[in-house]
C-alpha cells in the first residue's frame, strides 16, 4: 500500500504526516497523535462519539479518510480547553449536569461547538437536529440541550 504525505492543521498546529491514505481520521487521531478524547462507538457513522470539527463542520472521524485531510483544519475535544480554561460550553455541561458516563460527551461537545460557531443563537429544534447524530444512552438529552441553550444566551451577552 502506498504512503502519502499530508499537510493539514490539527488543533492549531501545522502537521505533516506520512501515512496510508485509506486510514480513518479516527485512527490517525488516536493512534498517531494520542488524541484519545475522540471515541469510537460504532465505526460506521451511526453514534457520533467520534465527532470532530473538520473545516468548521462537525463530522464523524470514523468516516473520514486520511487522504481527505490535505489542506484541511481539524479540531478535536482536546483543543477546546487548550489553555487549561474550559470553554463556556464545557462549563455549561458541568453546571447543567449534562455528563453521566461521559462517553458521548466529547462528540456532543464538538457537535454543539460547531453549531454555536455557525448559528450564534440556535432554536431548540436546531439544537436537537445538530446533536441528533450524537447518541447518548445515559442522560435523556435534556441537560445537554439546556447546556447548549444557556451557552448561546451567555455568549450573546
Amino acid at each position, binding site marked *: 500500500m502506498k504512503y502519502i504525505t499530508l499537510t493539514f492543521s490539527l488543533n492549531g498546529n501545522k502537521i505533516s504526516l506520512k501515512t496510508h491514505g485509506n486510514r480513518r481520521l479516527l485512527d490517525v487521531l488516536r493512534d498517531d497523535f494520542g488524541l484519545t478524547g475522540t471515541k469510537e462507538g460504532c465505526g460506521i457513522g451511526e453514534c457520533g462519539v467520534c465527532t470532530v470539527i473538520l473545516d468548521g463542520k462537525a463530522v464523524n472521524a470514523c468516516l473520514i479518510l486520511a487522504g481527505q485531510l490535505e489542506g484541511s483544519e481539524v479540531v478535536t475535544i482536546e483543543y477546546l*480547553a487548550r489553555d487549561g480554561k474550559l470553554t463556556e460550553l*464545557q462549563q455549561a455541561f458541568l453546571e447543567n449536569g449534562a455528563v453521566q458516563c461521559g462517553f458521548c460527551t466529547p462528540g456532543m461537545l464538538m457537535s454543539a461547538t460547531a453549531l454555536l460557531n455557525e448559528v450564534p443563537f440556535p432554536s431548540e429544534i436546531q439544537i436537537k437536529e445538530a446533536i*441528533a447524530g450524537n447518541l447518548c444512552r445515559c442522560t435523556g*438529552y435534556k441537560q445537554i440541550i439546556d447546556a447548549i441553550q444557556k451557552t448561546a444566551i451567555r455568549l450573546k451577552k
Partner: protein
Amino acid sequence: MSEFKPHQLAALERRVDAAPKVRGQVRYIRDLKIPGMWLGKTIRSPYAHAHILGIQLDRKFDWKQVVVVTAKDIPVNQVAMLENDMPFLAEKTVKYRGEAVVLLAAENQDLLNEAARHVRIDYKPLPAIFDVFASQVSFTKIFGDNNLFKEIAISRGNVEKARQNSDLTIEIETKTGFQEHLYLEPQGVIAIPEGDQVTIQGSLQCPYYVKRAIDNMFAGEKRITVIQAPTGGAFGGKEDYPSLLAGHAALLAVKAGRPLGMFYDREEDVQVTTKRHPSYHQDIAYVNKDGRIIGVELTIFLDGGAYCTLSPVVLARSALTALGCYHVPNVRILAKAVATHTVPSGAFRGFGGPQAIFAIEMLIEKIAYTLNLPPDQVRKRNLIRKGQRTATGQLLKYSVSARDTFQDVLRRSGYKKKFRTYQNHNADILKYLRKGSVSSLKAGEKLKGIGISVSQHGAGFTGTGENKINGKIRVEILPDGRVKIFSAATEMGQGEETAIRTIMAKALGIGREAVILSDINTDVVPDSGPTVASRTTMIVGSLLIEAAKEIVKKVKIDLSTKRKLSFTYRNGFFHNSSEKHAFQDAAKLSAGWSVEKQYRHPPIIQFDDILWTGDAYPVFSWAAAVAEIEVDPITFDVRVSRYTTSHDIGKAINPDQAVAQIQGGSLQGIGYALYEKIRLEEGHFDITGFTDYIIPTATEMPEFEVSLIENPYPYGPFGAKGLGELPLVGAAPAVVSALWMIFQEEFNEIPVLPEFLAKIFERKTGKNVSD
C-alpha cells in the same frame, strides 16, 4: 414530605467526575496504550444448537505468530455465577448462535482476521428450541431435566374464594421483547500476565464478580487482580458479561505471555452480549364492577436463553414486582425462567421489574376498558398504602408513596382534563381511519393520547441477598486529615462517586473535597458487593454513615487525650468552651487509623426464600408517570411529546443527578415501548448496531416534567432509598396506556411499532391504510 422544584436544583452540588470528562481526558479501556499488547478475537458458533465434531487449524498457515485457545486449555471451564453451567468456551456442544468456541490472539487485527480464516470447526447441527413453551415440554434438554432455571410460587389469601365473590373475571396475555443495553462504550477488557499474577482491567460493573470467575477458572493457581477502568455506560450489561470476556482475555494473555486486549466492536457486542429477558404473562383478575380487584392469578415466563447467568434472581424480582403498586388480598403468582437456545439473557436496569410492571399495568388497562371506567380511577381504587401487605405478606411500614406519586402526576399533568380533550380531538380522525378515508384527514393532524402508570422498585437485593453478600467497606484517615473510602462500588455514569463522597462529607459535616475515593482495585478495596440493584446509595451509604460515627468517636478520643480536655463535635468542629478544632486538623492525630463496616439488613427485615413470604425488600421506591403522545394517522409514527413523572426515592442525595437519572431512564423505557425491537431468526438477532436497533435520539426526547417526592426511609443514609432502575420501569406502560386511550384497543405487547398500529385499521377496513 417536601418537594424539589427544578429551579432549586441549579444551586445544588455537581458531579465530582464531570470535569475530566468534558475535557476528553478520561482514559477508558480502549484509550490505554499498553506496550506489547496483542489483540484477541473470538470464533463463534454459527448454529444455535450443534455438536462440535472437531477443530482444525490449517497446516499451511503460519501459526507461530498466533496464539490459539480452545476449551482444552482451560483449567476449570465454568463461568462461576449462580449456577456453573456456562463454559468459557464450548467444548462438545454449542447452545446458542454466537457461542464462543475458539480464541485467537495476534499482534494486530489484520493478522487475526487472516488467522481466523484458517480455523475450521465442524459441527453437527441439532434441533434447537426458541420458544419458552416448547422448551418446557421438549425432550431436548438445555438445563437440568426440565429446562427451568428457576420456578417461584407465591400465594396469599384465597384466590378461589375471590373468584367466586367477584363480579367479573378479566384476563390478558402480555409479551415484552428483548432489549439491548446499547451503552455507548462497547465491552472491552485487558488482561496482563506477570508470572503467577494476572491483572484484569476493564469496562465493568462488578470487579469482585470478575475476580471470582477468573480465580475459579484458573483453579486458584493464579493471583488475580481486577481493576475497573472508567466505564462508558453499563445499565446491567456490564454486570455478568465481563466475567466471560475477562476469562477469554486472561486465557489468551497467559498463553501468549503478554498483555492482551479483547475489544468488541458494536456488531459483535449487540450480537452476543446479554439482553433483557423477553417475557410472557398470563394474568387473570377477579374484580368488582367498581374496579376493585379482589384477587389475581399471575403467571410469568422469562426467556433465560442458553445459560442460567442471573436468571433466577431476575425471575425473583419479576415475581416480587408482579403485583405492581396495588393492594390485592388474594394472590397467586407462578413464575418460571426457561432455557432456550438463545444468547443468555442477563441483567438490565430494572432486572425483571419492567416486564412485571408492564404486565400488571396492562391488566389494569383491560379492567378499565372492560368496565368502562377511567384508567386512573381503577388504579386509584387499588393503590397500596402504608399498613397494607404485599403479595409476600410484607407489611409496608414506612416510606410508601404509591398514592402520593400518583396524585402528584395526575395534578401536574392535567391528566383528567386532557383525557377528555384528546378523546374529542381524536373522534373525527378515528372515524376517517375506520372508514379507510385517509384523504379526508387534515394535513399534519395527529392523534393525541395520554396514558398513566404506577411503578415501584424494591431497593437492594431481593430477599436474603444482602445478608449473603455481607458487603464491606473501609474508611481510612489520611496523614493530612482527609478521609479515604475503600469500596468496590463502581461509577458507570450513574453518579456513584458523587453520591458516596457526598454522603460521607455530609455525615462528617465536612466539605466533599476532604473525602476521597480509592481506585477500584480488588487488591485494595474490600468487597462491598456488586454495583447493581439500585443498592449502592442505600446499602454502601448506610455503612458510610456508621463509619463516620466511629471516625468522629476515634478522633475525639485522640484529641481529648492530647489536649487533656473533653470535646463535643458539631458541624465539622470539635470544640469546648476554650478550644475549637476543624475536623481535618484534628483528624491528623488519628492518621493511618481505619474502620471497617459490614452490612446486615436491619433485624426487623425477615424473608423466607423457600415459602416466598416476608420482607422481599427492605423498602420500595415509588413512581408514577403520565405520558402524552402524538400518533401520525398516516405513518403511525408515535412520538412522546411530554412525560411527567414523580419519584419517591426517600431522599435525593444529589437532586440534579437524580433528575438526570430519571430522564435518562425514562427515555430508555420509552425506547423499550416504541423503538427497540430485536427479532430472533433461528436464534440469530437481526440487529447489527445503531441503524437497525433504534434508540431515542435528541429529536425523540419528550418534554420532561420531573418531580422528586421525599418520603425518607429510616434506615437509609439521610433517608435515601434506591433510584437507578426505577425510572425505566414505568415508562413503557405509561406510553402504551396512551395507545389504549386513543385506539380503545387492547395493546399487550411491546415494542409497539407503527406496522402494528396500521394493522388495527387494516383489520377494520380491509384496506392497507399505511400506503
